């Protein structure tokens, strides 16, 4: 039985922008299971980064609850709260912006160790820093401890960010687009290292990306959740999502992505959207937010009711989807473009 380590229930989050209220997340419900690889994918503005911040407790939800190991994190106080803070860490996207340019690698990594009293004194911190650098393959360690961020390459900086996230021995790490800023040739090395960390350190990783191929590689034995305009529209086992996407948005996304193979990519069938315009979050259409673009849209249903994420009745696969025709058990019928 999968054991949830983080659960989101009915999470909403909105931001005020001038006089407008922007609903960034609406009714998000899912759990992250212990030691699973979970990827959240979606285009910009879908709310994946906000979800990541909410999981880490860096941002409170407007409503709804987030549970960490069964406890509502809004109710944590004192030692429990500090333990949650230590246990859930985030790795940001941009390794050029997220490291303090005036601190050496050693200073950056020692600070959380000493602040949380995880080591005894300078000597203890030094030993631990060396261990951490070895964990992220920045070896020989002596070459890196005294370096400043500007002396490191993008890939090396991101390894330092990962080492910093590991200082507090977290049980969950949220990696937000953590490899998108590094070159293709070194991306996979970073990902493989993060995947190894799960087995070596028992850490659960939530990986946030816009790149479905990367998500597939990272979470091959895990799950993918697809987000669109602030809602989770499909979540299921990675291999099912890739081979048999259920939600129209997932189908369209997969059909649109070019492949690194000339014959395959040129023969790929692209599903045409009804409209290329992405609705603004402040002017979301009624019903399903995807209906104005959806090629399988059912008038009178999709533009009226907001679909809930659930397992469709006659599904061949066990992905949960938020799609009205699918949940009625209907076959999807393509509209003429």
């Amino acid at each position: 039985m999968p054991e949830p380590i983080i659960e989101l229930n009915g999470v909403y989050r909105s931001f005020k922008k001038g006089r407008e209220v922007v609903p960034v997340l609406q009714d998000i419900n899912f759990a992250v299971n212990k030691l699973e690889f979970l990827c959240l994918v979606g285009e910009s503005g879908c709310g994946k980064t906000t979800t990541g911040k909410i999981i880490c407790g860096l941002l409170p939800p407007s409503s709804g609850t987030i549970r960490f190991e069964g406890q509502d994190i809004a109710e944590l106080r004192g030692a429990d709260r500090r333990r949650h803070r230590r246990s859930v860490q985030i790795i940001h996207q941009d390794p050029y912006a997220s490291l303090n340019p005036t601190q050496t690698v050693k200073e950056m990594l020692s600070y959380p160790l000493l602040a949380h009293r995880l080591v005894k004194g300078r000597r203890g911190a030094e030993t631990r820093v060396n261990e951490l650098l070895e964990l992220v393959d920045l070896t020989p360690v002596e070459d890196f401890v005294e370096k400043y961020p500007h002396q490191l390459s993008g890939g090396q900086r991101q390894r330092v960010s990962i080492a910093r996230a590991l200082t507090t021995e977290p049980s969950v790490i949220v990696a937000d687009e953590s490899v998108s800023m590094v070159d293709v040739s070194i991306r996979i090395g970073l990902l493989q290292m993060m995947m190894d960390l799960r087995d070596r350190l028992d850490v659960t990783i939530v990986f946030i990306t816009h790149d479905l191929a990367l998500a597939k590689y990272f979470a091959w034995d895990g799950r993918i959740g697809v987000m669109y305009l602030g809602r989770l529209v499909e979540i299921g086992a990675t291999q099912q999502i890739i081979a048999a996407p259920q939600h129209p948005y997932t189908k369209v996304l997969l059909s649109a992505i070019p492949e690194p193979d000339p014959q395959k990519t040129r023969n790929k069938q692209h599903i045409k959207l009804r409209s290329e315009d992405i609705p603004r979050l402040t002017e979301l259409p009624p019903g399903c937010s995807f209906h104005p673009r959806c090629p399988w849209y059912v008038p009178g249903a999709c533009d009226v009711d907001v679909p809930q994420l659930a397992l469709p009745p006659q599904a061949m696969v066990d992905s949960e989807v938020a799609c009205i025709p699918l949940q009625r058990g209907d076959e999807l019928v393509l509209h003429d473009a």
Partner: protein
Amino acid sequence: MPALSPETVLRVDDLSIVYRTDRGDVRATNDVSFELKRGEAMALIGESGSGKTTISLALIRKLPKNAVVTKGQILYQRENTVQDVLGLSRRQLQAFRWNDCAMVFQGAQNAFNPVLKIRKQFEDTARAHGWTDKVAIRKRALSLLELVRLDPERVYESFPHELSGGMKQRTLLALGVLLSPQVVILDEPTTALDILTQRAIIDVLNDMQRQLLFSIIFISHDLSLAAEMADTVATVYAGEIVEIGAVDDIFYRSLHPYTYGLLTSVPTLEHAQDILQSIPGSPPNLIAPPSGCKFHPRCSFASEQCQAESPQLQAESASHLAACWHKDRLLASREEGA
């Protein structure tokens, strides 16, 4: 000027460029040669810092001030007249840019003047190149905006902030080809755009190229984009073209360990688990590049010869050249793996 085959629009011979910096000379481009045919789409692929952008900036003479072209020529042909781009006067250069060769820079979102309507920006461009008939400009602009699948009347009278990122990118493509250039250079045309917007841009580019018959040079770190759009692919490493060939040659029969390394580090959407490997190490410092083959410190096939001698591009077939001492070893190991 040397005669070029009638099909050739651009030929680059032995182009070498150095950036003068306080720390020493950065050898950003070394003996780069290639030929671009009419209607051809060529992709330059490679890691950041490999020199892709330097090569393309040289083609329109937009290199930064501290760059010096130390060697080579860039021949451009239009209607049987050949010019060396490096020898153009200021006035000739102004005519050459945009009329003959247009560049669409990375981050198109910021390329427009935010306080001018799109119409004004089309008109300014046309007027700067001696075209004053506003009615004719409008007609041409609207037909191009339609070609990039936008609502022409609306977009033409809009301010940039009224358009989404993908719409701006498409408007910029239309503006790029306003003066019917023969060569369009695209620097990371789809980077920073969303998946569905990327798809729209790729489709639009294909349509435009089919109708307007220009040649494309595009710079991308996205191998999938190269696989989909390019006729020819050139792999750039440490300022050199290390392999160049037809898109199928590069993707199915790559002969350079660096190209092969790039290909095996890219995840796919196929319904099977990817077995991927990243290239060890990082790109070299171009102030003091490694001896011999510049890739040898990162290459699993490197031998003493690779450290000592720099391999030249050698033809494997009419369309496919690679610079590697150990092509056969790469082939053998690929066959073993397959």
